[in-house]
């Protein structure tokens, strides 16, 4: 109706503004009028404002259940709770692309404000390059994925939102993830601009570091939320499946992490200039490839909304154009503007950063190959395979040990040259690490030298990071993120080795045991909610101290669209999650019950939050001496 019209025309105006900004900045650059007037800033503001209006109109259409709008009709239903009506806005292809566009124009506005003290030709070029991406996405949305398509006759009722997307963590997962994902676009534009305007130096690094941290924090948060959702909602008790869709969010994260370390080196020592630029380009290219893989329907998953090849081909061509553009610019300006200092490999922080980058790049290639190899194989040899966890474990785990060792000693190195002293303190850390690792390995009962080595590496990193709290010049950003990372690795390892699981088919009244616990199936009840009916199983767990824990797993049968989902019931404690799911066995009184012990689950979430906290420290620390 009128709201959809408003949203649609607002998008058109947004596109026109973008084209105008693009032309305006090209003319300015050509005539060498290097000023960014308030008017130009106003235009960028307007561009954002138009997309914002359009986005709000779509949200509004969802709230009032305007079924004359095709997007709303396909993805909403009057019986949905308000929260899921709103989150349904981005729970579909069209809406999520509108969100893409919103963030894309938003970060440019932020950039213009945050870069007031930078040279204007650099700013203008950044705006110019960013507009190419913006215009590309405007056309993409308007041409192939218009969220305001009208349907006639107006329908009385919508088709509903996919029930497994009806989850609070998933409601906010896309916006957070997108802030990280799309945030990399401004890094890309700025990298190209800095190359042309000969501005790849300390002040550029300082300027763009904010956006790298910004994207990195949100990307971390987005991945965390997605993981939490997978753990609670999918009902398999896992949090990471090496699913292609998860991988495409991990890849930009890895290259952003590498970039984060590079940019600090550039800021301090003016080193790794070319490499930093390459990473900027790779990061954004990976975000785009991620968007392409997820949105085109090439991969089958809950994230795949669209099965329209024309959309995929558009994004694919667009990625190719952007990558080729940056490639050409890089080749032209590579030697022209880069006065590279000689890089000497001594025992120094620079070298540590470089080694860190090599490792991260290796991990990145493993994930990349695991993700796209099946697609290549399918096309070239017509063979379908899927790459699973064993592939990643084999190729990643062994290399984690040297990686964390370098990560442990890197931060205590100095720029230019370090003289290592091996004192009593280092000795105690090592002894303590060994003791902790042996105890842990003994406790989980895995007598395997490889696992012992992994634990030694991870604990060493943890203790070394914690040890830095005692130093005089503390770098909280690094301490927190490294501590968080080591905790994350330790929790994942503990979790994977001491998880226990039992699957039984039982009737009401029966019971079974896992380790020292007795699981009793008390009763079953049917409950009715607004948007679903649920079969609730009541379980009582008696642990070795005879305390009773109640768990109530559900099977939800959603009404629109009709679909059954399994809701796990989880009791979280500091050391262990108890996780139970039930499934109906057709035409029988038996229920399929799956009960799991998931140790240290909560630490996986907490440590990721600590990693993010490190990033926030880095953002809010102003003008102080920065180390990695």
């Amino acid at each position, binding site marked *: 109706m009128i709201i959809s019209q408003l949203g649609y025309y607002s998008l058109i105006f947004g596109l026109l503004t973008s084209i105008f900004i693009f032309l305006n900045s090209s003319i300015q650059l050509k005539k060498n009028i290097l000023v960014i007037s308030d008017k130009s800033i106003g235009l960028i503001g307007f561009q954002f404002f138009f997309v914002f209006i359009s986005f709000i109109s779509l949200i509004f259409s969802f709230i009032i259940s305007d079924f004359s709008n095709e997007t709303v009709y396909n993805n909403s239903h009057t019986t949905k709770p308000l929260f899921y009506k709103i989150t349904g806005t981005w729970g579909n292809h069209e809406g999520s692309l509108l969100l893409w566009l919103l963030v894309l124009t938003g970060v440019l506005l932020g950039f213009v404000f945050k870069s007031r003290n930078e040279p204007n030709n650099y700013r203008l070029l950044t705006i110019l390059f960013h507009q190419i991406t913006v215009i590309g996405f405007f056309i993409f949305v308007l041409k192939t994925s218009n969220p305001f*398509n009208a*349907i*006639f*006759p107006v*329908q009385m009722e919508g*088709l509903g939102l996919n029930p497994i997307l009806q989850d609070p963590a998933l409601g906010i997962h896309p916006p957070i993830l997108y802030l990280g994902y799309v945030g990399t676009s401004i890094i890309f534009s700025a990298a190209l601009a800095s190359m042309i305007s000969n501005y790849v130096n300390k002040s550029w690094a300082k300027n763009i570091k904010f956006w790298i941290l910004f994207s990195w924090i949100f990307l971390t948060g987005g991945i965390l939320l997605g993981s939490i959702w997978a753990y609670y909602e999918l009902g398999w008790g896992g949090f990471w499946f090496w699913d292609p869709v998860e991988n495409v969010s991990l890849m930009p994260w890895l290259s952003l992490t590498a970039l984060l370390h590079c940019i600090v080196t550039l800021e301090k020592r003016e080193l790794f200039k070319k490499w930093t630029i390459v990473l900027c380009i790779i990061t954004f290219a990976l975000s785009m490839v991620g968007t*392409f893989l997820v949105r*085109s*329907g*090439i991969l089958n998953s809950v994230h795949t909304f669209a*099965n*329209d*090849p024309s959309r*995929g*081909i558009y994004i*694919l*061509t667009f990625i*190719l154009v952007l*990558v*080729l553009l940056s*490639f050409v610019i890089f*080749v032209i300006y590579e030697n022209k503007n880069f006065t590279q200092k000689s890089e000497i490999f001594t025992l120094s922080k620079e070298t540590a950063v470089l080694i860190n980058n090599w490792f991260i790049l290796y991990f990145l290639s493993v994930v990349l190959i695991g993700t*796209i190899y099946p*697609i*290549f194989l*399918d*096309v*070239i040899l017509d063979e379908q395979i899927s790459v699973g966890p064993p592939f990643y474990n084999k190729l990643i785990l062994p290399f984690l040990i040297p990686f964390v060792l370098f990560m442990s000693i890197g931060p205590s190195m100095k720029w230019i040259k370090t003289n290592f002293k091996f004192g009593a303190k280092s000795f105690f850390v090592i002894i303590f690490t060994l003791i902790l690792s042996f105890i842990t390995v003994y406790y989980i009962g895995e007598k395997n030298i490889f696992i012992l080595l992994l634990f030694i590496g991870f604990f060493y990193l943890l203790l070394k990071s914690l040890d830095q709290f005692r130093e005089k010049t503390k770098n909280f950003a690094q301490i927190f993120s490294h501590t968080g990372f080591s905790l994350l690795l330790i929790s994942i390892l503990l979790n994977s080795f001491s998880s226990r699981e039992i699957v039984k088919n039982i009737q009401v009244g029966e019971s079974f045991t896992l380790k020292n616990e007795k699981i009793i199936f008390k009763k079953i009840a049917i409950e009715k909610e607004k948007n679903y009916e649920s079969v609730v199983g009541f379980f009582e767990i008696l642990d070795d101290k005879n305390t009773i824990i109640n768990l109530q797993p559900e099977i939800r049968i959603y009404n629109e669209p009709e679909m059954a989902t399994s809701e796990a019931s989880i009791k979280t404690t500091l050391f262990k999650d108890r996780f139970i799911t039930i499934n109906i066995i057709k035409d029988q009184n038996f229920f399929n019950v799956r009960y799991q012990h998931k140790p240290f689950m909560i630490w996986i979430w907490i440590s990721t939050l600590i990693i993010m906290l490190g990033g926030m420290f880095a953002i809010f620390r102003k003008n102080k001496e920065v180390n990695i």
Partner: protein
Amino acid sequence: MQFLEKIKKSIFSLIILIFLIISFFVFKFALQKEKIYSPKISENQIFTDFEVVGLIEEKQINFYEVLSGKNFYLINIWSSWCEPCKDESEYLLELKKNTPVMMIGINYKDNKKNALNFLKLYGNPFDQIFIDKQGTISINFGAYGVPETFLINEENKVLKKYIGPLNDEDVYEIKNITNN
């Protein structure tokens, strides 16, 4: 030395360029490939034992009886409010004219008046049309939405399943299968 360096660099650039272009085409083919989904042998038998009601003459009949006497059946799920169905109708008409297939339409979540109007406007390619007011019959076929098309043989096996509107290639493929 500098010359060698330059050659090295151009070869490296060339490799990257070739890699990019190959990836582009691989992804492009992957995109076009994914659309046609052929179910595995074990699950490609469709469920036929249910009652359906005709759109034009509102007569009730078991769907099992509909699928008899022909070598191939094309089941097309459509609706008058479905935009792509309008574009698709010319392909369906062509198939009706040029193949020995029995064309069966399933009118998905629609009302009778609009559906009949639609047929009047865009032509009626179907030998028989049944209504699926609630969308449940389409679920029996394992359909995702409208439009969707299934090619079935005399043993009720799904030979091909097309998600989304048919195009030239699909029509060509159907003709090939059914005319041999």
